[in-house]
C-alpha cells in the first residue's frame, strides 16, 4: 500500500475520533447540544464561483526576489504591514492586521472544473447527487463544536443555469454545504425569505404570524401523533417510531429556544432597505442583503456558523459597477468575453472588490459589537475562497484564501502573505490539511479531514502544524 493512501487503522482511528466530535447519525446535532461554555467562535465561509486566480492575490509591492518566487510558486511569506494590498482588496486596508492571504493549498481530490458543489467544503468529489456527499462539510463540523439554536445557516446567490442550476434565485434549495454523508444542506436564496423564516417567531406581519402559528400547530400534532403510535409498540418497532417522534420534538425544542430568544431576536431583526426586499434584486444588492442577514444571525446568536455562496458560475450577475444594467453570464466571463466594453478580468475585479466591501461590512460591524473584554470580531474567522479552485476550468491545483481572523482565533496566521509549497513539492498542503488544522485547533481531534489526492506522492495527512503553534 502506498504511503499516500490512508491505512485502515488510521482511517478507523480518524473515523472514531471524528465521530467523537460529531452527533450520532440522523440526529439534529445543534438541537441537543449543551450551550457552549464561554464565548463561542464564529465562522463565516464565503465562497464564490468561476475560480479565483492566484495571481490576483499577490501584493503588488513584493520585492523582485519575492516576485520571482511567486512566479515559480516557491514557498515564501511576507508581512503585509510593509506591503500594499491588491487594488481589489482595498476595502480590507483598515483590517490589515487581521488579514492573511494564503496561497498554495490544492484540492485535486475535489470535483473541479466549472463547479465543485460541496467539494471544496467537504474535500471529496461531489457530482450534485446527494449520494456523492461523503461527509459533513467543514463548516458543519465547526458548527458542531459551537452549538447554537440554528446550528448553521447557509445563504446563497444560486446558479440558475449551467450544470447545477437551482429552480430560482429566491427559493430554499440544496446548498453547497452538507450536514453529513448523503445529507445536502438547504440554503436561503432570498434574503427576504431568510429573514421571514429565521425571524418568523418575532415577526409583526400578520401573515407571518399565522404561518408561524400553523407550522407550530402541525409540528405539535405530528409529535403527539407519533408519540401515541409509539406508546402501543415495543422493542425495535417502538424505536422506529420514537426516533422519528424525537426528531420532531427536537425541532420543536429548537423552535422553543428561538422563541425564548424573542427579545434578542427582535433587537436584531435585519432592517433591510426596501430595495433589498424587491423581487428583482440585483446580484450586488442580494449579496449586501445576505451580508445583513448573516450579521444579524451571528449577532443575535441564532447561529455561530454561516456559509455564504457569494456567487456561483451559473449565476447571472447584475449590478456590476459600470455595467449595472447588463445581465452578465459569468461563464462568458470565465471564457474571457468582454462584457459591454469591459474586459473579463476587469469584470472579475469589480466583483471581487464588491465582495471585499461585504467583508469590510461584516468585519467592521462585528468589531463594533462588544463581547467579553473585546469585540465580537475577536471571536470570528472569515474565509473567502473559490469553490472550484484556481480558474474557470480549474483542476484543483490551487485554492487561494483570504482569511480574516480575530485576535482570539486559535491559529497562528498573522498579517501575512503566505505561499505554501506548490502541489507536489515537499511540504505541500491540501484543503484537507487546512480544514484539519481548523478542526484540530477548535477541538475536533480528527487525524485527517477529507479525501487524499491520488496524484500526490507525499504524506498528506494531518494539520498544518505551523498554524497550530
Amino acid at each position, binding site marked *: 500500500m502506498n504511503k499516500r493512501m490512508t491505512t485502515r*487503522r488510521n482511517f478507523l482511528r480518524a473515523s472514531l475520533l471524528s465521530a467523537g466530535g460529531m452527533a450520532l447519525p440522523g440526529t439534529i446535532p445543534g438541537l441537543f447540544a449543551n450551550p457552549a461554555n464561554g464565548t463561542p467562535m464564529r465562522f463565516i465561509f464565503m465562497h464564490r464561483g468561476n475560480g479565483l486566480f492566484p495571481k490576483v492575490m499577490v501584493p503588488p509591492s513584493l520585492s523582485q526576489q519575492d516576485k520571482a518566487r511567486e512566479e515559480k510558486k516557491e514557498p515564501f511569506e511576507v508581512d503585509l504591514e510593509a506591503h500594499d494590498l491588491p487594488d481589489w482588496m482595498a476595502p480590507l486596508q483598515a483590517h490589515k492586521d487581521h488579514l492573511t492571504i494564503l496561497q498554495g493549498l490544492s484540492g485535486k481530490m475535489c470535483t473541479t472544473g466549472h463547479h465543485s458543489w460541496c467539494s471544496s467544503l467537504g474535500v471529496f468529489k461531489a457530482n450534485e447527487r446527494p449520494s456523492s456527499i461523503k461527509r459533513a462539510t467543514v463548516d458543519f463540523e465547526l458548527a458542531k463544536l459551537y452549538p447554537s439554536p440554528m446550528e448553521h445557516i447557509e445563504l446563497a446567490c444560486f446558479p*440558475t443555469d449551467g450544470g447545477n442550476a437551482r429552480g430560482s434565485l429566491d427559493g430554499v434549495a440544496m446548498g453547497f454545504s452538507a450536514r453529513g454523508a448523503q445529507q445536502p444542506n438547504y440554503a436561503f436564496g432570498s434574503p427576504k425569505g431568510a429573514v421571514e423564516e429565521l425571524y418568523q417567531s418575532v415577526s409583526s406581519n400578520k401573515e407571518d404570524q399565522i404561518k408561524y402559528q400553523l407550522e407550530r400547530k402541525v409540528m405539535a400534532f405530528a409529535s403527539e401523533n407519533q408519540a401515541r403510535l409509539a406508546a402501543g409498540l415495543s422493542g*425495535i418497532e417502538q424505536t422506529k417510531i420514537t426516533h422519528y417522534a424525537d426528531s420532531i420534538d427536537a425541532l420543536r425544542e429548537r423552535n422553543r429556544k428561538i422563541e425564548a430568544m424573542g427579545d434578542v431576536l427582535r433587537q436584531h431583526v435585519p432592517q433591510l432597505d426596501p430595495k433589498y426586499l424587491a423581487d428583482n434584486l440585483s446580484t450586488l444588492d442580494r449579496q449586501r442583503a445576505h451580508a445583513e442577514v448573516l450579521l444579524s444571525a451571528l449577532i443575535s446568536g441564532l447561529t455561530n456558523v454561516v456559509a455564504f455562496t457569494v456567487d456561483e458560475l451559473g449565476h447571472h450577475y447584475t449590478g456590476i459597477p459600470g455595467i449595472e444594467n447588463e445581465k452578465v453570464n459569468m461563464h462568458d466571463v470565465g471564457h474571457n468575453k468582454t462584457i459591454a466594453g469591459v474586459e473579463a478580468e476587469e469584470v472579475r475585479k469589480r466583483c471581487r472588490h464588491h465582495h471585499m466591501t461585504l467583508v469590510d461590512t461584516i468585519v467592521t460591524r462585528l468589531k463594533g459589537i462588544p463581547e467579553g473584554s473585546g469585540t465580537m470580531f475577536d471571536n470570528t474567522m472569515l474565509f473567502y475562497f473559490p469553490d472550484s479552485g484556481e480558474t474557470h476550468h480549474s483542476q484543483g491545483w490551487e485554492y487561494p484564501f483570504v482569511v480574516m481572523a480575530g485576535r482570539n482565533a486559535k491559529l497562528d496566521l498573522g498579517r501575512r502573505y503566505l505561499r505554501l509549497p506548490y502541489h507536489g513539492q515537499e511540504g505541500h498542503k491540501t484543503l484537507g490539511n487546512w480544514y484539519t488544522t481548523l478542526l484540530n485547533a477548535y477541538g475536533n481531534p480528527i487525524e485527517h479531514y477529507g479525501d487524499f489526492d491520488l496524484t500526490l506522492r507525499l504524506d498528506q495527512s494531518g494539520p498544518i502544524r505551523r498554524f497550530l503553534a
Partner: protein
Amino acid sequence: MNTRALRSWKTTGRIGAALLLAIPALHRMSAGEAAGAFTVPPPVDAVMESHCFSCHDEDSQKGDIRLDQFHALPLAGRLDLLNKVQEQLFLKAMPPAKKKQPSPADRDLLAGWVSAELKKHQASKLEDKLRYPAYGNYVDHATLFSGEITDAPYSPARRWLVSPQIFEERVKDVFSLEGRDRQRSFPGVTNPFLLPDQSGVRDYDNAMLNGGHLLVMLPNAEWISSKQLRAARVKKGEIKADEFPNANDRWAPRETPAAFEAVILKNGVPSDEELIDAIQTQFGLVLGRKAQSDEIKRYLELTRSSLEVAGNTEGLRQMLVSVLLESEFLYRLELGDGEADPDGRKRLSPLEAARAISYALGDRGPDAALRQAAAAGKLITKEDFRREVERLLADETYCAGPVDPGISGKNMQSHVTSHPKLVRFFREFFGYPMAAKVFKDIERSDGYYQNPERGTLGTPGFLIEEADQIVDWYLQRDQAVFENLLTTGEFFVYHDKDNETGRKIIAEWTEAYNKLKDTDWKANPEKVIAENRAFIQSKKSLRILGGHEKREFLRHMYFFGETIGKGRTPFTTVSFAHGYTYNHSIFYNLPPTPGVFRYGEIENRNFKGLDDVEFWDYPVEQPFALPHRKGILTHPAWLIAHSSNFHTDPVKRGRWIREKLLAGRVPDVPITVDAQVPEDPHKTFRERVENVTQKAECWKCHQHMNPLGFPLEVFDDFGRYRLDEPLEYPEHLISKATKKNGADVFQTKAVSSLGELLGTGDPDLDGEVKDPFELIDRLAKSTRVRQSIIRHAFRFFMGRNELLSDSQTLIAADQAYVHSGGSFKAVVVSLLTSDSFRYRKPTS
C-alpha cells in the same frame, strides 16, 4: 423460538440458537435473585469453573477479563462483560480451540444464562447486530438446509422503511398520476432515502426514520400539499393561472381532488362531513387506506383549528401536510391481522399482502387487480399469493422501468427491463455497482478510464450497465440462472442498440462505404455529396446532411475506411456523435474504438492522414463470446468494485466469495490490526499480500479469503486480463508515457493464478485450483453456492436475515430452483408464497 427449535439446536449442538432463547428455568432463577445480590447460578458457575476461570480469574485475567467477579460489578459493567461473553460464545472463539471444549449441553447452559441476563435489561448487543446484513451468515448453513427444523416460518411484525424508488412512486400516487405522467421527477421533492453503499443486500427492515428524514420531508410536504391545491386555488381566483412562486417550477396536477376543491371553493366554514371527506381523501392518496374513527377525530380537530386561524385553503393544507408527515407514509407496514394461529402468527392483512407482493416485484403500489383481490378477500391463501405473484411476473409492463435511474447520465441510460427489481437483486448480490465508488489513476489505464464525474458515472457507469444487461439476459431466459451468471462466456459490450437495429445500421454503412469509397471523396467531398444526395438521404443511419455536411461526410468516410475498409465492423455509434464517451472496450481486453477527437482535424489544411490503429471488430450480435472471461466475477465492473484505488484486492475478492457464495463468515479485522500491504518493488501484489498475512494470527482469518481471491489476480484492478503484473516502481521504469494521461511502462513479473477452494462441503469440488476459471466452474457446481444465493435472495425479498425458523422456506425455494431447471422466477414465487412472507409475529 419455541421448544421445537430449542430441541433442534440442542440436537445439533449449535450454540448460536441459544442466543435467541430465553431458557425459562434459568430466567426464573435470575429473576428471583434479582431482588437480592447478583449471583451466578451454580450450574453456570460450574461450567465457567471448568472452562473459563483458568484464564479469566483473579490470577490470570487474560485480556483483562475476569469472569469470577460478576457479583461485584455494577449493572453497566456486568452487562458489558456479558455482551463480550455472548459474542465469544456465539462465534465459538472461546474457549480457544486448543483448550478442552465444553459439551454442547454446557455451552447451551452458559449461553442461555448469558442471553437471559441480557434480555432482562434488553441489553444484548449481539442480538441487535444479528439483524444487520453483515451478520446474515451467522445462522448455521448446514442446519438451515438440513430439514431438521420444522418450525412454522414467519417474519416479525414490522415497519420497513420504503426504498428510494418506492418513495418516488408513492409521491406519484399522491398526485394520482398514471401513464406517461408518472415519468417525471418533481423539483420540489428531495428523496430522503438512500440505501447504504455495500456489496450485498442493502434494503433491510431495521433502518429507521430520523431527524435527517424529517428535515427533508418538511419542505417536501410543503411542496406536495401546495401542488395538490393549486388547481382549486386558481379556480377560486386566489392565484392566477400563470402565477408561480418559482418560474422554473410550473408543474402541478391538472385537478385538485374534489373533496379538497369543495373546501377551498366553499364560502364560509365547511361542514364536518366535507372536512371528513377531505381527510379521507388525503388518507387514501397518501396512506392508501381509510382513516379510522380516532384518526378522523384528531384530524378533524386539527383541520378545524387551522381553518379558524388561516381560512379554508391554508387550514386545509395543514391537514394535507400532517398526513404527509405520518411515519406510515415512509414505512411499509406489515403488522399482520386477524386471529393468531397456534404458533402465534398472524396473516398479513389483505392490504398489507397486496403491498408486500407489489413492492417485492417492483416499486409501485398494488395494481388494480391486486387491489381488487385484496378487497374481495382473495389474498389469503398460499394459492392466492401464487396466482398474483405469477400474474405480475408475467406482466411485462406494470413493473417495467430502468434498473437504476441513478446511473443514467448525459451519455448513458440505465438498462430498461420488465422487472428491474429482479435485476436489482443480482446487482446488489454481486455488488458490481460499487465500481462507481472506486476512483482510479487514469494514467495507469493509459488514459482510457474515466472516473465518475458530474453528470456521468464515467467508465464504471458503462461497465455497470453492461453487467446489468447480462443479468437481465439470463433472467429473461430463466434457466440455470445462477450457473449462467457465474460461468457465462458471453458478454454485452457497447450494446446500445438491439441486434436488429445494429444489423440494419451496419448494412447501410457498408453499402454506403462500398458505393462511395472509390469516388473522389477526399479531394471533392462536396461534389460527391451533391452527386449522391438522394442516396445518402435514403440511409437513415447516415447523419450527414443538413448541417456541416462536408465535415460530417468526411468523418463518416474516414471512420468507415479504417473499419469497414479494413474488413472490420465498426461500432454502431459514430465516435464523433455529440457527447460520445465510449472508450472502455480495453477493460475487456478488446481493441479500442476511435476516440471522440480522432476525426477532429480532417478538415485542417495540415491534415496528413490518420495514424494506423487496429480498431475493434465490433460484434453487432450480442451477447458475444469473450476470451478469458467467465461470468460476473470476471466482469470488469465486479473486478473494479472489488479492488482498491491502486491495486487489485484479492482479500476483498476472496471475502466476497467466502461470504456470498460459500455462506461463510470472516470476522472484521480487529481495530488494532494495521491492515497494510507493505511495499516491495520486487514482488507482485499477491506476493506482498502473502508475506504480510502468513503470520498465524493473520492467517486465522486470511485462510478463508486469500486462496479464493488469489486466482483472480489474473485480472488487474481495472478488470483487464493479464499474465504479468507491472512492477510500478521507479527502479522498474522502462519508458515514460508518450501521450497525455498515458501509462508509464514498467518491467513485469508473472502472476500466479493458483488458489484453493475449501468450504463447499463437497470433496469433489474442494481442493486446489489452477486459475479463476476452474475455481468458478467448481463454484457453479456447488450445492452450497446455490443455497447461499438462495439465502441472499431470501434477504432481498424479506428485508431481513434468515432465522432458523425460516429453514422450510429456504429449502422450498432451493427445491423450486432445482426442480424448475434453475428458474429464478420459481425461486421468487416460492419465497413470496412462503409462510415467511405471508405471516407476521409480534416482536417481543
